[in-house]
Every structure is written in C-alpha cells, then in structure tokens.
C-alpha cells in the first residue's frame, strides 16, 4: 500500500507541482489549502506524513502540530521562507520533524521525507542506538565512538550531546531541544554551551572541524547529524 502524504500549501502552483512530483514517487497525495481544511482531513484519515507550508492565510500552524502530536507520531516537514526563522523554530520545538527553506528542490524534499519516515514510530520500535557513516561509527548501548576503527574518548557531556543527535540522525535538532535534553530545561538560553561543546566534539570526530562532514550546522536553528 502506498504512503499517504498531506500537503498543506496555499499557493496553487506549488501545490500542483508537489502533487505531481510526489505521485510520481509513488505517494498517495492529499492537499489542503488552509489549516482548517488540513485539520479536518487529519481528523478524517491520518496521513503517514505531513508537508506543512508556513504563512498560511489562517494561522501559523503551531496549533495544528500540537494537536497532531497529542495523538499521532506522524512526521511533519515544515516549508518556510528565509525570513520565517522564529516561526520555523517554534514549529520544530512544538514537534515538527524537519524543515526546508524555499526555494527547495524536489530531491531535497524527498530526502527529508525519507529520513522523517524512517524515524516514524521510533517510540514504538526500538530506538535508534547505532549510527555509522563513512569513517564514523557510534554504538550508544556499548558507549562506543570510533573514527576509522579507533575508539575516541568523549567526556560524559560530549557523549550525551552526540547521543541526542544520533537518536535523530538525519533530522535537525533545535538548540532548545539539545539544551533541554542534554543540560536541562533551565539551560535553554545558554547557547554558548552548545557552541563550545560542539567545537570540542567536532575537534574529536571530524577530520576537518572547519568543514564538518558529520556534525552539520543549521545556522540559527540547530544541528543535524549527517546520515547520508
């Protein structure tokens, strides 16, 4: 059975473009032009994944994501313009899975959707505990981090930070989410912790910390552990 995608987008051209490209890839596509229509469709038949445009005429979508998260772990990918940083981060913190900045290519969208779908249901299935890409290998259960087969020594905080990213490998994790999960909810304003620890972690993991291959920066939003 093909997967059902709900595309929430008010621009007709982009909506039909997405519908066409996603159908070609074998998705069953449903579209909504407003948040209220999307909410109605979600109640009627929950999709497997949602592609949500920011700046819809009837609101900013945070409510929709919160409502959806109460019952489902359906992945949500946010599509935003460059200047909608704050709104985008709010949605990610509210539980959206990833984001794309307009203009984006269909290839990028499909890649993001694949990652999001892979993580779907991680709350039910065994959580991701291992990660391997090129020279890097991480096994959380064994407390093991290797580069080129050589074990790396990480401090407890560095390991917690890396572990948090491994569990969401391929997806963006916002500053707030990282600070909350690694240091605690009272540290959400201490972004300099992230800068300093991420620099330490990169110095150990990356071949060239100035052009990282694994620990990618999503400027102004958060970090992403590369998984492809």
């Amino acid at each position, binding site marked *: 059975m093909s997967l059902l995608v709900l595309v929430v987008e008010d621009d007709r051209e982009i909506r039909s473009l997405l519908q066409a490209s996603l159908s070609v890839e074998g998705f069953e596509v449903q579209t909504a032009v407003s948040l209220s229509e999307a909410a109605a469709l979600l109640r009627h038949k929950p999709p497997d994944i949602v592609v949500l445009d920011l700046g819809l005429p009837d609101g900013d979508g945070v409510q929709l994501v919160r409502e959806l998260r109460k019952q489902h772990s359906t992945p949500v990918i946010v599509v935003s313009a*460059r*200047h909608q*940083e*704050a709104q985008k981060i709010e949605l990610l913190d509210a539980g959206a899975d990833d984001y794309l900045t307009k*203009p984006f290519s269909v290839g990028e969208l499909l890649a993001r959707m694949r990652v999001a779908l892979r993580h779907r249901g991680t709350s039910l299935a065994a959580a991701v505990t291992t990660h391997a890409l090129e020279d890097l290998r991480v096994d959380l259960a064994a407390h093991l981090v290797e580069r080129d087969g050589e074990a790396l020594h990480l401090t407890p*905080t560095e390991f917690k930070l890396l572990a948090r990213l491994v569990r969401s490998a391929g997806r963006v994790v916002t500053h707030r989410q990282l600070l909350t999960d690694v*240091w*605690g909810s009272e*540290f959400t304003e*201490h*972004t*300099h*912790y992230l*800068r*300093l*620890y*991420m*620099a330490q972690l990169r*110095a150990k993991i990356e071949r060239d*910390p*100035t*052009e*990282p291959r694994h620990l*990618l*920066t*999503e*400027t*102004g939003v958060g970090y992403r552990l590369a998984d492809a």
Partner: protein
Amino acid sequence: MVQVYDVQEQGAHSVRSWVAVALLLAAATVCNALLDPYVSLTSQAMIYVLVIVIAAYKLDWVQSAVAAVGAVTALNFFFIPPRWTFDVESREHFIALTVMLVVALIISHLAAGLRRESRHAALNEQRARQLQSLASSLANSTALDEVLALGQLALDAVFGGPNSLVLANDADDLIGDTAFPGTMPQAMRDGLRCCIAECAVLGPGTGRWPGLDAWYLPLGDKGRVLGAARVWPAQADDSDGREHAQALCSLLAQTLWRVRLAASMQVAQIEVQRQQLQSTFLAAVSHDLRTPLAAIVGAASALQTQREKLSPSEQDRLLGSIVSEASYLSTVTENTLQLVRLTSLQKELKRDWESLEEINGAVLARVRQRDPGRRIKSQVPAGLPLIKADPVLLAQLIGNLLDNALKYSAGEIDLVISANAQALMISVKDRGPGIAPAEQELIFEPYRRGDQSGARGAGLGLALCRAIAVAHGGSLTVRRRGGGGSCFCATLPLDEPQPEKELA
C-alpha cells in the same frame, strides 16, 4: 507732640517695628539718664542721633520719622533745660532739634532707597538665575510635553498661579494644558485663543484688555505662535514681573520651536531614506530581476513549444539554465529583502553567542556545491572567540563574499578568519581583475558592479554585506592585493566579554 498722634493714627504698621522704636528710644533715654552726671548735653544728643540712624537704617520711613521726633522730644523733655517740660529755652537748642529731625528723615529716605534697590537687585538676580537654569534644563529636552512641564514649574516658582501653558495645534485647538487638564474655564480659553491669534501680551499694564486679572503671553513670534501661557496674579505696575514672564515664555517658545523642527527633520530624513530604498528596489526589479526572468521564460517556452526539435543535450542545457537563473533570482530577492529590512526597518538583530567557525562551515558546505574544483582555501584557526551576532546575517555576509569571488575570479580564493582581543576579521582574497581605486567605494552602493562586461553581479550582494557588518558595529572594506586581485575584509568587534566557560 503732634507726631505722636500721627503714630497712633498709623497703628496699622506691624507691632514689632513699633515695639522696636519704643525700645530704642527707651534704651537711649535710660542710657542718657545714667550718663547724665558725667557727660555734656552734646554727647547725649549724639546717643539719640545714633538711635535715629539705627531706626532709619532698619525700619521704614514712617517709623524712622517717628523715632526721630520721639528722640528729639525725649531729649527736649528729659535733658534740655528747662527739664521736664517741652519748652525750648534757647535758639541753639531749637536749631539742634530741627537738624536732628531733618537728618533722621534724610537717612531714613536714603536707607529705604538702598533697601529697595538691593531687594530689586536680589530679585533680578534670582530671575536671571531662573532663566539660566531653565535654559540649561531645556537644552536637553526633546519632547514637547517635557518642555511644557519644565515651563510650568518655572512659572509656578515665580508667580502664585494657577498658571497654565497650552499649545495650539493646526486645527486651532488648545492642547497640552498643564494646570487645568480638560477643565479650563471658558474665559481663560478665550483669553489664550485671543493671545495666540493676536500674538501679543494681554492683561494689566499692557494696554490690551487691562481689565483682566492675569497676563496672557504668546509662545513664539508673529507668524509662528506655538501656544500661549496664562500667568496669575498680575499687577499693572509690576512691569519687571511681566518682563520676566515674557522672557520665560520666549525661552520656552525657542525650545518648543527647536523640538518641533528636530521632529520634522527626522520625519523628512526617514522619508528620504524610504524614497532611496524605493528607487533601489525599483532598480533591482528593472535589472537584476528582469534579466534572469527573461532567461527563464525564454528557456521554458522553448522547451514547451520546440521540445521535439531539440536534442536531449540541448534540453538539458535549457533545464539547467532555468534552475541556475531561478536560484540566482532567489539570491537577489533574498539580498534585496534583507537589505531593505536591515536599513529601513531598523531591524532588531537576533543576536546570540555564535561560533564563526561553525557558521563558516555551514556556508562552505553550501558554497562548495558551486566550487567543485575546491578553489576556496579556507584558513580558520582553532579556538576562535565566540561573538554575539545574528548567525543568519553573518552566514549571508560570508556567502555573498565567496559567491562574488567565485564569480569574478578564476584562480584560488583565500578565505582567512582571524581574531585579536577586540575583533574578528574575515578576509576573502581573490586573484580576479581587481577593483580600480575610484570604484572601491562605489561597489558597496546598491546596484553597482566592478565590471561592465556582462558578467552578472550579485546585485545588492556587497551593499548587503556592508550593511550587515555595520549593523554588527563593524566595517567592510576592499583593497587591491599585491600581485593582482582584491581583498575584502570584514571586521566585527567583540564588544561583550566572552561568556563564562564554566559549564554544567
């Protein structure tokens, strides 16, 4: 004798002065009585003269005259033979008594004049000081309300009040009334309106509406009256008071005028800026947006109508040009919007502790897609200080500089980041044709490019880069490199102390 009755008739004067007169006379008389066996009549007369001089100097002229007459009478009664009578025996004594009386009156008159003048001088000095202190406190005011409040305080300090200050607006309404907010009596309102309309002082002693009990003073000169003041109480003969009120009002008027001019100048400046941006934006639409749009429409319509006739490789070329022109269009749009946001809306920067190494890494990851030959050589030292900055803007700054260098040069590009205690420096050095000294400032103007050869520029790229550096308190400059090429150098100051490294 006769004068004694006068004294009684003038009993309205303050009791204390009269007691003083009586005490002085009694003291002199007692003193003379004690000295009587030892001194001559001349010395006794001198003691009375002393009393008269003291009274004349300290008390007003009625009391000092009474003191003089009293002294002469006492001298006559107690000491001049025949004693215990008011009779004057010799002509000499009569002359002495008369002279003493005249001296007393003259001294009293002189002393009173002196007192009046020194009081007057003190008042003038106080008023001058008030004007001076008002002027200095007004010098820093920038709001009309503030000026009115200071003016009100100044008027209340001199005149009993209630005093009021109002401004006239364009619709001829009175606004900003300080003493009677919303409850000003109609007569007062009319007086102020009339004063503004006539632009003249009204009230007692001015020859206009002398029947009023207050002065109405305009704030401003003919042709630019900003408001009016009402000062109460007002006396027709108090011309000094009126002049002082006028001086205060003209000081207030000058300040009000200055504040109003400053406000309208600011409005004008914002308007000029807005128009400049508008023309910049129009320039963007007319050139940097229209050209790629034409290319996109051309390629897309060719594919639409002639697809069968085009070879697959030609189709690929057209598709590639659509994608690259569209992404160029997106960059120009983004730069234009960001520049408008930065310069016109006084956008608050979203500053946070950021690592330049990290931002630079993210930019390189994107730019490398257009740099397959890895022409960009980056040198980023480890352990750069953190900077409190807007990460999205810094990424745009570095990205635009690198895009430009890739576009205008063919050789290697050096990206060097360095730091000292005060600032972070980002340098992008290329081996392109270089920029003529005359052009070196112009390239930072919106919509100017180094070459006119047809290679397309990043539109507002450099203008935006400079605006971003300036918004962070820094600068962006360009210089020619020895051996050819250009070096763009952005300096970003490290204003805030580094955050504590002590980590949880």
